């Protein structure tokens, strides 16, 4: 199956932007990554099995492109994450603290945490998207949660 870029953008552009932002930590780069991802989708002649297949593909390509973006030598003069955060309107101060704390996690924990808590992906789905083992996902999730608990204390519940 195929869906138009317009349909997919309406549904997933903010999700993909958030994923790219977790890796790039920069609005402009993250937006460029999302654009490149949709261009890639538009260009490839790939038939997908389902909408979930498309979603997983978009997420994987976004992650790969965001990592590539971080490795390019040429970077524009862009807004720092601190300056960008000042433009965001958080519902509560706890939300702002959580956002800031997550963004300080090492990248490999950050992306696993995001796919689990924001995208509602299971450990198996995260393993498939990131091409790592389920046990590796569990380790990253566990370490990421421990850091969040340590930093946020009662603002972060104990996960089972």
């Amino acid at each position: 199956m195929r869906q138009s870029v317009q349909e997919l953008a309406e549904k997933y552009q903010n999700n993909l932007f958030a994923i790219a932002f977790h890796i790039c930590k920069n609005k402009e780069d993250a937006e460029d990554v999302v654009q490149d991802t949709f261009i890639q989708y538009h260009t490839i002649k790939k038939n997908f099995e389902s909408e979930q297949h498309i979603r997983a593909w978009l997420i994987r390509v976004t992650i790969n492109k965001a990592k590539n973006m971080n490795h390019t030598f040429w970077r524009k003069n862009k807004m720092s994450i601190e300056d960008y955060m000042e433009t965001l309107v958080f519902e509560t101060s706890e939300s702002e603290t959580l956002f800031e704390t997550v963004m300080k996690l090492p990248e490999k924990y950050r992306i696993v945490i995001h796919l689990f808590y924001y995208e509602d992906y299971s450990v198996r789905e995260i393993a498939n998207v990131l091409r790592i083992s389920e046990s590796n996902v569990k380790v990253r999730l566990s370490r990421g949660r421990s850091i969040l608990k340590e930093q946020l204390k009662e603002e972060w519940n104990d996960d089972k």
Partner: protein
Amino acid sequence: MTNKEKYKQAFSVLQTSRDYAMEVDNMTKLTKKTTMKTGIAAAVAVCVVLAGGGTAYAANVGGIQRTIQVWIHGDQTDAELEISQDGSYNLTYKDENGENKEIAGGGVAMEADGTERPLTAEEIQEELASPMPEVEYEEDGTVWVYYYDQKLDITEKFEDEFCYVKLHHGEKTLYVTVKYQDGYGVSEDKYPSPSEWDTDAPEE
């Protein structure tokens, strides 16, 4: 609130207002126009260090240009090789879509006394005719190993970020260890450990 609810509330601030559908439409039109001109999107830098040998580089004023056959993504392809005096080269060929592509590279040879010199044209040609395996990450998320006429899709072969590939060409066998998105090593004896190409990796 659960952690998931807290997390979603915190990160719901990340919104993008760009019109991606329109941008994709515009960009794909633009890309079609410029690809033929640039054609270097997949430029690969090849650095070769050879041991021994004492051939002096011939002083060619205008460089050397010749047609050679090279393996590109598993296909043997005619390519125009242009070699400069500094040991760098440009390889231009047409891909399967007839579009011009360019690979730039170069290398140095280490003399017995430790001094470096640019590779000779013959050495560059020899290296290009005997390719090493290449690992490429496609933008659709697939991962491929190319070696002579072999094209292996290793996307599903990774376990714990690692994939081990055994390649044969004639009587030669190569062992390739690929760490997902983090380099690869090649050896004729055994699967190399990541510490052999990644100085940050722990010793095994």
